[in-house]
């Protein structure tokens, strides 16, 4: 069991602006799963991923990562998990424009792989895995959207992350690149055993996943 959520709640705003983004979520995700979170916009998909990815805190409830309870005040532990065990793929790719593809991938493992040579070797390996062997020294603005997102997949894998979180990773991609990306993620999931959790409102992708979490108005349905 990699992820266990117990009565997780999250509310934004106060008074009449109050929005209950997550309501008493109980959830378990097995190691090695390839899971999609689906639901309409505003259903709480992003909030759920942010809480699991330790980018945001829940207001109530318990969260166990790999059997260890998360204390939102323990910044050092959270930072350690972000550096070693978690990987992220963003909707807008979020590559650093001043770094080449290879440097971008290397950068994410700055803490988890202290040895620079080792870091480079692994970054090259993962870029090969995502099919960008010949684009390593290219800057993000010289790459297509699909290529940029594949760089960010390689980046998320660095340091042998246990869980890769992807919030709408295909939202800025065309159909062709969407399927290339999902197939790539699926392949890496099977070959490396890395757990993937991604949100989408593209129902075509739901056939590709092992299990789906459906959210509506902050509740599991």
């Amino acid at each position, binding site marked *: 069991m990699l992820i266990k959520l117990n009565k997780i709640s999250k509310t934004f705003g106060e008074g009449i602006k109050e929005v209950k983004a997550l309501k008493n979520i109980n959830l378990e995700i097995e190691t090695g799963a390839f899971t999609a979170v689906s639901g309409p916009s505003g259903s709480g998909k992003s909030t759920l991923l942010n809480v699991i990815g330790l980018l945001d805190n829940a207001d109530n409830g318990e969260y166990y990562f790999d059997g260890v309870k998360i204390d939102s005040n323990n910044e050092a532990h959270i930072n350690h998990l972000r*550096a070693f065990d978690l*990987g992220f793929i963003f909707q807008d790719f*979020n590559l650093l424009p*001043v770094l080449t593809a290879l440097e971008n991938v290397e*950068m994410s493992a700055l803490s988890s792989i202290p040895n620079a040579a080792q870091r480079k070797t692994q970054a090259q390996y993962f870029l090969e895995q995502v099919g960008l062997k010949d684009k390593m020294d290219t800057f993000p603005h010289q790459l297509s959207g699909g290529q940029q997102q594949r760089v960010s997949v390689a980046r998320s894998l660095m340091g042998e992350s246990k869980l890769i979180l992807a919030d709408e990773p295909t939202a800025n991609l065309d159909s062709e690149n969407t399927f290339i990306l999902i197939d790539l993620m699926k392949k890496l999931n099977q070959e490396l055993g890395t757990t993937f959790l991604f949100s989408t409102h593209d129902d075509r992708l739901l056939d590709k996943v092992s299990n789906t979490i459906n959210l509506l108005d902050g509740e599991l349905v």
Partner: protein
Amino acid sequence: MSQWFKIAWRNVARNRRRSMVAIWTVAIVSSSIIVAHGYINFTFWGLTRVIVQGGTGNMQLVDKRMVNDFETELLAFGLDSKTANETVAKLEATQPVRRAMQRLLFTGIVSKDDSISTVFRATGIESKKEKRLQQGNAAGAFVKGAMFKDTDKNPYQAVLAIDLAKKLSIDVGDEVVLLANTVEGGINAIDATVSGIYDTGIPITNQLDIKVPLALAQQLLLTDKVSNIVVQLRDIEATKSILPQIKALVKGTKMTVQPWYDIKPYFKAVEIIYYSIFTVMGVIIMTVALLSVANVMGTTVNERVPEIGTLRAFGIEKWQLRLNFVFEGLIIGFIGAVLGIILASCWHLPSVKQVL
């Protein structure tokens, strides 16, 4: 560490126009500070020469009582010729001292042909040594004639300040009568030939000043005493460092040493005023530079907040991100300062060579 510097450098280069605004602001501020300081520095450099070469010397030896008391009788605190001659010999045997000169200061009345007369303030000098004291200085330059010569054979000579000469309608070669009190309280008069007319550089002294040979002064005042001994060093700037050595030399005697900046207290006043103005202006323009660079850095940081979030998501520590942005500020500040130094150097190349 190095990758943060690399990222910082690339970001500075990436936002070239914005970075250049900040860099040039720093450069202009830097060069202004250096030039303003250079101007103050020149003023003190010049003032030092005006004072030291203009007659004050690097330091002066006087009777100790001269510091706090007033002479009620003429030359009551004067140095007798034995003491003075021995001290001069000792001083001139000291390596850092170029020369030591005895002087006798007195006042009196000067007249020409018994027709016009006016007050004067005279200095009896050792002309052979004093001629060289004022070299390379516009103040004290002769406008007509020259310094008196061969005073051993003929001490009855004088040089007059320009306005005093004008007042008396005196030209080079004319005779004047110098009238003064003797140390015993009587009155004495001596004829002298005017060998030169000079400009002191200061209007008030141009109306009063006379220089005569030391021998004439002593003869007029019926004394063998001198008022003080003026010390000129080989290195004009070395006053402070050589002062203890000269102090040690006169230890145990009735004399004391006064450096030129204590004799001319206005120098210190000017120094305080200049540095106060410089500090206030410096703080103001530094603040302008700080705000300008902070504005640029604020824009840069704001633009890259998602980037910061991304790096945080990958476990990059806060201090590493701080380092990254601090490097950017450092690069802008450093390059700006280097440019500023180059700009300041272009201001006046010959003088830069002198000091830099």
